[in-house]
């Protein structure tokens, strides 16, 4: 008899998109494992993750990108916040932020293609940081989509190796997520 009049909607059936989450955590051994374990156990897929120490040596900052609808991502943030070592979690996707990523791209090169590669890099606010006979390394900083474009262009020459850090973000203006941590 489950022909209900109005079916109740399930949590998390909204539209999926990429979210940027910032977590301020205790800088202790094992905290990264706690975060990773939680995301795995609860079926949240981390697209990218960047971790480093903050202004204070006892705290670290994680930037996670997760794809999901609002409810799904909010659930991830709430679960993260339940970890004792997590001090602050914020979804900054819709805030005014600077989002940048760093990449090193080792491109196959010959005497003939080298100048071309260098000019492609320069046109994209990137620089060549190593110039070898058979390969050059391009260093890129920018929004992930900018890096995508550059990688696409360099692919023509042949990419031998690619490493990207994942996004790090910071809000514009004077606001500070770190200062919001209540101690």
């Amino acid at each position, binding site marked *: 008899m*489950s022909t209900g009049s109005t079916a*109740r*909607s399930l949590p998390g059936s909204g539209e999926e998109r990429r979210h940027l989450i910032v977590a301020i955590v205790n800088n202790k051994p094992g905290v990264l*494992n706690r975060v990773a374990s939680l995301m795995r156990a609860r079926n949240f897929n981390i697209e990218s993750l960047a971790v480093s120490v903050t202004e204070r040596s006892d705290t670290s900052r994680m930037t996670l990108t997760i794809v999901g609808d609002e*409810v799904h991502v909010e659930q991830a943030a*709430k*679960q993260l*916040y339940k970890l004792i070592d997590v001090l602050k979690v914020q979804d900054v996707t819709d805030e005014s932020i600077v989002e940048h990523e760093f990449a090193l791209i080792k491109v196959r090169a010959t005497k003939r293609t080298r100048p071309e590669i260098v000019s492609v890099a320069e046109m994209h606010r990137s620089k060549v940081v190593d110039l070898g006979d058979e390969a050059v390394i391009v260093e890129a900083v920018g929004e992930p989509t900018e890096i995508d474009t550059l990688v696409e262009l360099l692919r023509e020459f042949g990419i031998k190796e690619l490493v990207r850090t994942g996004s790090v973000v910071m809000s514009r203006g004077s606001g500070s997520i770190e200062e919001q941590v*209540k101690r």
Partner: protein
Amino acid sequence: MTQAGHVPGAGTPAASAAERARRDMLRDARITARDGVRPRIGADALCEAILLQGSDTIWGYPGGVILPLYDVLVDHPELRHILVRHEQAASHAADGYARASGNVGVCLGTSGPGATNLVTGIGTAMLDSVPLVVITGNVPNALIGKDAFQEIDITGITLPMTKHNYLVRSADEIPHVIAEAFHLARSGRPGPVHVDITKDALMGQTTATHPSVAEVEAGLPGYKPKLDGHPRQIKLLAEAIAGAKRPVILAGHGVLIARAERELLELARAAHIPITWTLLGIGVIDETDPLAYGYMGMHGWKHVNRAIQSADLLIGIGMRFDDRVTGNVRTYAPKAKIVHIDIDPAEIGKNVVADLPIVGDAKHVLDALLPLTTKVDPTTRVDYFAELATWRTESEASSWHGSGGFRDGVLSADFVVERVAAGSNFDANLTADVGQNQMWVARYGGFRRANSHLSSGGLGTMGFALPAAMGAAVAVPGKVSWAIAGDGGFQMTLQELATIVQERIPVKIALMDNKKLGMIRQWQEIVYGGNYHSEELAGPDYLKLCEAYGLPAWKVAKPEEVDAAVAAALAADGPALIWFEIAERQNVYPMMPAGKGLSDLIDKWGDDGEDITEGDSGPRVDPTDPQSGGAR
């Protein structure tokens, strides 16, 4: 000059430290002679810290690396150590101790297998929000990560099933970590906290002092449970209640944890709302109260599920709308606005979309709500309550309920549960196992008091009843402690008979022997079209078993013998067991097959009453339906 060897890093300081630790493990050296003044070591600090937290019982089992603790236990006589027969039982006993008393339970095991044996009990406590502090020993610091004897990455294992866990490598950390562990275990949404302590930390000398609560809280900047609900939301709730025609309260474990039974009843009385409860919410209200409507969900009362399905306002308090409660969410309470009160913000919006979410402790929220609640004149809800009463009469007129206990020459389980509970005037602590017996206890236990019902709800851990009832008996010596277990679950932890005999723990055991994995048989009958496999279960002669262990036992196969056996077991000084040979094929009805909705109950009541015959009941459920899941 260092000599090159086949051991990686040989000759380095790390290698010699590991070598020293290895030698110490082999020697298992006592630190000092007890006569004469001995220095205070980490193990002493551990005992002191536990006592300072108000816990006086440890359920444990010794082993190599934890021996330094056993070496000093004699110097802390206020701390009672109860030796179990298997570490799983230590964790369940600590869990039962915690559920029955509301205090933190403490259990202990050695590294490696001792620690892994505790894991089932940790998971059980995690899913049911039970405050435990679980202590394990670990190998000396220098051997960590070396696959030393009995070394396992136990903090890696317990990480996803604890509220928090620690690896302690120095004696100086012990006072602070233990105080923090207790604080985390019992505050906010409670849960198990695991503290793994290396042998060096247990043996190291220390003068570290015990921190105050303020110091503990100051050290936890990332942990601030939110107790008070948002005033605006609470005001909206008061308005929603004032406007509701068919409100229903769904009370869960959170009400008991917050000790908010009185406030709950005040709300129900003021606004004239029936109270229903989840499995772990049993005991939030005296079941004989006129506003107590019943147990909900998969094997809940049909009238209760009907009330939920027809409600216009559901007020969930300290419960989490889990799948055993809602069935298919899409068809759940289609006309109701859902209010969800819970201390854990992550519960809100997880399983159902809440129309009115309130994050806070049940007691705090109810305290704030009560002054805003408009009194409802019961006469305005006459029709509603009359309909509820009709539905209740209908579901209680079923063929099994109150059947007089006798069907086809065998004992009926519901009757046995009811008589066991009645034997102590419905004031005993009843600990259920898992399976059909658990559902019969939930339905027919007739509970009248908070924390008198203990059950592994979230994890559904077979083998829970006997050890947990043991914990309850020690925690609350003034109340009778019954373990009501199926023959399957009982055989999973029956080694604890030796513990209750040795320690004279007066657990009374009602063994519900249907010679089957009853719940499995029921699912195979109803969900798998009678394709039975592995549900026939042989067991020992339980009278001989009890004789061997040294506890009195009775065997009962006729309804008219039940009361006398219960009285005899209660009169026995110490533990006792009654072997109830119950109907072999009785099903628990009604039943909501997983994936179906609360309105899709399979219910044989009032038909021909032929529920004991196999293979003929109810619609067949598609076992390949991904929503159907497995048996409990």
